């Protein structure tokens, strides 16, 4: 029995002073670098043309943990809207992290810096659909994490791998990884990432059309999100619940979840996210043939866009309503709305070519000659102007 017993004095043991000093010095240094680097990185990126960003890797003021932290934030902020820029920045971060001298930080810290830089690169690659390269970058990230104490970091990398594997239809591998990561995050009290894993699992079930399982996976997460005060995750869970409920044909439940998601985003002050959720909900309902409910949601989204002065977005979502109205046979309403949209967009001096196309649609609607195809044709043309602003409109 005595070999299993650790004496009480051992629990009161004194740590090696050299190690305490290393810890305190590293803590102080990382803290200082974090504080100093935020502005430095932002300024460097602003003042340097995008194509020259790779050269920033040699700038001494960017070769530290604080700059790498800041770059991580910059990558995250760009993933959705500017994935190519996110990729460039993650390349820069990986390049800095990999060329830091081996003795610049304690080995554990250096391993974290390198692994997380590769993880960011993988995320950026996945966002632009370069999945095999993303998986390679994740291999690199994991290979840097050869310390037992880095299980939490390893789980962060593996969580990204799990989501990437879903994109290449490796659902079973993804499910196993999510279960593993979920446990690690739970053990570390990292409720936010624990919730991400749950949402990731629900997405997987959704992709494999197991909507009931997805719904049942998400429900218990709501309590965790509420208990930990994670309002953003709660909003995302509600939004995913709404999605699953629509596919299950439980429209009342879907409406409630959608409204809850929107309310939580509004609580957070993320009004744009709230409108996007409304819009996505409306589109989903339309796609499932629920014209009345879908139109109602799209009208709500359009009203919110107008309230926030986002006239262009209001116009484009309005076109989706026109299409749905025509589908449901409400020709007069469709004609009225098409005219209204044209007026609004003229008022903000919208692109002339787009206005011509909209005028064509409005005239056709007034003359009861517009069809669902007419609206789709006009919407397609307006979309194409983003890539080619000189493209001419051709009537159907």
């Amino acid at each position, binding site marked *: 029995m005595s070999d299993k017993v*650790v004496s009480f004095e051992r629990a009161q043991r004194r740590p*090696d002073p050299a*190690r305490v000093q290393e810890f305190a010095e590293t803590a102080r240094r990382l803290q200082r670098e974090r504080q100093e680097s935020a502005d430095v990185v932002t300024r460097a990126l602003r003042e340097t043309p995008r194509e020259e960003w790779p050269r920033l890797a040699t700038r001494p003021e960017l070769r530290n943990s604080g700059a790498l932290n800041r770059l991580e934030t910059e990558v995250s902020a760009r993933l959705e809207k500017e994935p190519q820029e996110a990729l460039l920045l993650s390349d820069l971060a990986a390049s800095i992290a990999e060329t830091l001298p081996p003795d610049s930080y304690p080995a554990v810290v250096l391993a974290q*810096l390198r692994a997380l830089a590769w993880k960011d690169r993988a995320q950026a690659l996945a966002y632009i659909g370069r999945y095999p390269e993303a998986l390679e970058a994740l291999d690199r990230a994991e290979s840097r994490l050869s310390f037992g104490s880095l299980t939490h*970091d390893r789980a962060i990398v593996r969580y990204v791998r799990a989501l990437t594997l879903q994109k290449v239809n490796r659902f079973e591998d993804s499910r196993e990884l999510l279960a593993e990561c979920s446990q690690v995050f739970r053990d570390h*009290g990292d409720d936010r990432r624990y919730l991400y894993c749950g949402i990731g699992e629900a997405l997987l079930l959704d992709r494999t059309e197991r909507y009931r399982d997805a719904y049942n996976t998400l429900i218990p997460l709501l309590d965790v999100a509420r208990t930990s005060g994670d309002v953003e995750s709660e909003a995302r869970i509600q939004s995913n619940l709404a999605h699953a409920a629509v596919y299950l044909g439980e429209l009342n439940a879907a409406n409630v979840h959608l409204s809850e998601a929107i309310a939580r985003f509004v609580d957070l002050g993320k009004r744009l996210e709230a409108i996007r959720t409304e819009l996505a909900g409306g589109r989903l309902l339309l796609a499932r043939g629920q014209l009345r409910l879908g139109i109602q949601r799209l009208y709500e989204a359009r009203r919110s866009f107008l309230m926030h002065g986002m006239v262009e977005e209001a116009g484009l979502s309005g076109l989706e309503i026109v299409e749905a109205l025509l589908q449901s046979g409400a020709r007069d309403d469709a004609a009225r709305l098409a005219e209204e949209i044209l007026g609004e967009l003229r008022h903000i001096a919208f692109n002339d070519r787009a206005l011509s196309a909209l005028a064509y649609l409005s005239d056709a609607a007034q003359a009861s000659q517009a069809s669902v195809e007419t609206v789709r044709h006009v919407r397609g043309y307006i979309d194409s102007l983003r890539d080619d602003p000189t493209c001419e409109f051709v009537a159907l």
Partner: protein
Amino acid sequence: MVDTGSASDFDERQFEALYHEHFGFLVAVAIQKFRVPESDAETLAHEVFLSYLKDPAHVRDLNRWLLGAICHASRYYWRVNNRLSREAAVEIERIDPSTINILESLPNQIAAREALECLSPRYQEILRLRFFEGLSVPELAARLGVKKKYAAKLLTKCLRRAETLYERKGRRRLRRR
């Protein structure tokens, strides 16, 4: 307790206090629960502290984070060193819900075990048979070659002695604080 909300407000002394406050606990968990050798346990604990520094602002519950980190680090240690028997490996992989409150219960467990160590070998053996091997009082009597009534009396005596030692440990601990 050291303020663990965010490292951005720490001064140097706080970092050191944080290390001192949790070091013994982390090493004790690695040694006791996972049977990691002492010097390796200290290295694991040190690495756990260093890995915490990467993103301290996002650690909401430091005690739980450190406990999770040392438990996983110890499991990883054995996976890499591959020196455990199959049964022991299964045991350390098992998620043990009792570890969630280990911070509160560990000092008591340690004190209790040390109290047991102070008992005479015969008393230790009696408690081991009753509480570790799960023998009933009649079985205990048969094993010791005594009457059932005397076995029950002996058991009460052992427990009382252990309790006295346990209380003394607790008092000594309080005096140290």
